[in-house]
């Protein structure tokens, strides 16, 4: 996507994308990157339509995201809602100290990262694989039927998902009864901290993998079938076609989702974990969000929660920008392209 050169270059925007530097947006179709020649004003004028298109979103985010985001200043305050942000006393970095000096915080961070890492390997690829599998089903009726069934668990609440797993796999569950009848007994995956990682990943896959394929199906629909036909003529078999046509078509969206998932590394299934915390213990089930919840939110300790939220946001942003950089190294566009 980054290296192909478009032969024509008639408008300002048609220059090959591999040219670096905003100054490359010159009218000349070829040649090395040139120093910035256009004034800011000319460029704004040139791109006024594009800029105008972003205005509604900028306004909406400005008002409904950024204005209330200013409220995060309470992270440096001993905030009381009844006194207000303007009159609550400033306490420096005290709230951040409380976050960082809490030993539970580091346990929670460790658990969170372990879960994220595990799910990156064992959850993230599954919707992709599922999409490819579905895509390879030839009969449209079967394909659409399966498609319209697998996403349904996404609409189940976590309570229901956990209840279903409990009734199937729990110590008094259906599987347990079958195994007991066969002479096995004494296992209970729902309360075993050692296999908890497997359990919650299985639950997540069951609930959300079917929903997750939708984006990939959309991406697959943009592949030109002529490409397959042409490659067959070149002698490519089924796997080569997947490798050379299908996966490249999915690659930009996979990279995007991967980067954003990395940015969300500190966010793992809050409801899911809080529901099963008692079953396996906080030792493995305490994650950053539940930590903030128990240590700050339920106690109305808004300042503590804000400080933890800011820490998390900064880490997320660093992770996303880092992942984006790595994507660039591999020649991918990532979230946004290096200029």
């Amino acid at each position, binding site marked *: 996507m980054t290296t192909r050169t478009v032969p*024509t270059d008639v408008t300002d925007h048609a220059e090959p994308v591999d040219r670096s530097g905003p100054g490359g947006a010159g009218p000349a179709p070829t040649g090395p990157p040139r120093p910035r020649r256009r004034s800011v004003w000319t460029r704004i004028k040139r791109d006024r339509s594009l800029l105008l298109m972003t205005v509604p979103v900028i306004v909406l985010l400005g008002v409904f*995201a950024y204005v209330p985001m200013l409220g995060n200043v309470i992270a440096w305050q001993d905030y009381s809602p009844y006194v207000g942000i303007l009159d609550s006393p400033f306490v420096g970095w005290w709230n951040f100290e409380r976050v960082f000096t809490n030993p539970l915080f580091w346990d929670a961070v460790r658990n969170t990262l372990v879960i994220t890492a595990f799910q990156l390997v064992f959850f993230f690829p599954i919707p992709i694989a599922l999409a490819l599998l579905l895509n390879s089903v030839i009969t449209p009726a079967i394909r659409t039927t399966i*498609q319209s069934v697998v996403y349904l668990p996404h609409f189940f609440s976590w309570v229901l998902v956990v209840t279903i797993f409990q009734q199937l796999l729990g110590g008094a569950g259906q599987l347990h009864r079958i195994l007991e009848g066969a002479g096995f007994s004494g296992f209970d995956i729902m309360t075993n901290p050692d296999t908890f990682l497997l359990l919650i990943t299985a639950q997540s896959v069951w609930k959300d993998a079917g929903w997750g394929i939708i984006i990939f199906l959309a991406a697959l629909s943009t592949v030109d079938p002529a490409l397959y036909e042409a490659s067959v003529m070149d002698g490519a078999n089924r796997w080569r076609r997947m490798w050379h046509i299908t996966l490249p078509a999915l690659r*930009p969206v996979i990279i995007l989702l991967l980067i954003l998932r990395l940015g969300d590394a500190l966010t793992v299934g809050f409801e899911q974990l809080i529901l099963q915390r008692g079953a396996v213990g906080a030792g493995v089930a305490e994650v950053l969000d539940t930590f903030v919840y128990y240590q700050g939110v339920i106690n109305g300790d808004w300042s503590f929660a804000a400080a933890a939220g800011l820490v998390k946001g900064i880490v997320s942003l660093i992770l996303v920008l880092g992942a984006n950089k790595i994507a660039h190294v591999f020649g991918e566009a990532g979230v946004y392209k290096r200029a």
Partner: protein
Amino acid sequence: MSTALGPDGAATATHPPVDAAAAGSARPDPRRRPRRSKHRPVWEERPTALGTGAKVIVLALIVLAVVYPLYTVIITSLSTTAAVTQAGGLVTVPTEVTTAAYRQILAGGIVTRATLVSIGITAVGTLLSTTVSILCAYGLSRPTSFGHRPILFVLLITMFFGAGMIPTYLLVSNLGLIDTYWSLILPGAVSAFNVLLLRNFFMGIDPGITDAARIDGAGEWRVLGQIVLPMSKAVTAVVALFYGVGYWNAFFNAMLYINDNAKWPLQLVLRSYVLQGVTLPGSGVGQVDVATGAVTGLPVKMAVMVLAIIPVLVVYPFVQRHFTKGVIFGAIKG
């Protein structure tokens, strides 16, 4: 994606520049070609027995894993309280089937009205959100346009830095939006994720096509409306679905911002049925006993779950239509 799968570059170059739809119809539809199997394209080899067998087993297991729990949920929603008590939880074997839970929820006009409210909010919200997201995504999709990176950064920030509940409430209150339907739409109208997703797809469109349009003098608005959008139906449908589901399922904003119970959206009303039968702490024997032998507990909760799925079931086929393979040519650069 720079692999040497040559034909597309040439193919797109020969496309009539502006009218992508025309470009599509200019080629024979591959699905109409004569083929060996009813649905398999000519060029595709006959699947091996082993491959087909493995595929069938995997897909059957996946479907079973979804359908069996779904079945117990539906059966439970059609059960009596006594049946649930007997089963000690979700019912797997139906004893007596009753629609009491559904009748109880749908009785009275409040659900009807709430449904209308929800439909209105979802329709208006989805339209607004999808429109502004498409505009923004396209506005940011030119790799060299002025200011697109700072704006992308502005979007990214909102994904990782939240605003607290109280500041947001104060904002909504100060804008005079309390008790208005706008309070259910505007605060969450833009999802940066959806904008990035759209942008990702827009950037995958061969610039040769859009550039050709510009040669013909088309402005950006026309390029978006006549070329990019028609080529991006699938992702547009997906994003609209994401927004629509979000609006439909949202209840927390309504709980906060809507005081007038007549303006409650459906999910908030349905939740109130789920909460039915919760014992108040320490209320002891209390004076109130509204129970009228009505179905309580699991059947009602499962009925609510089923009702929540129905609108998606209705809408999803319209989204799915756009997933058909090979509707659009040349959408992905080689």
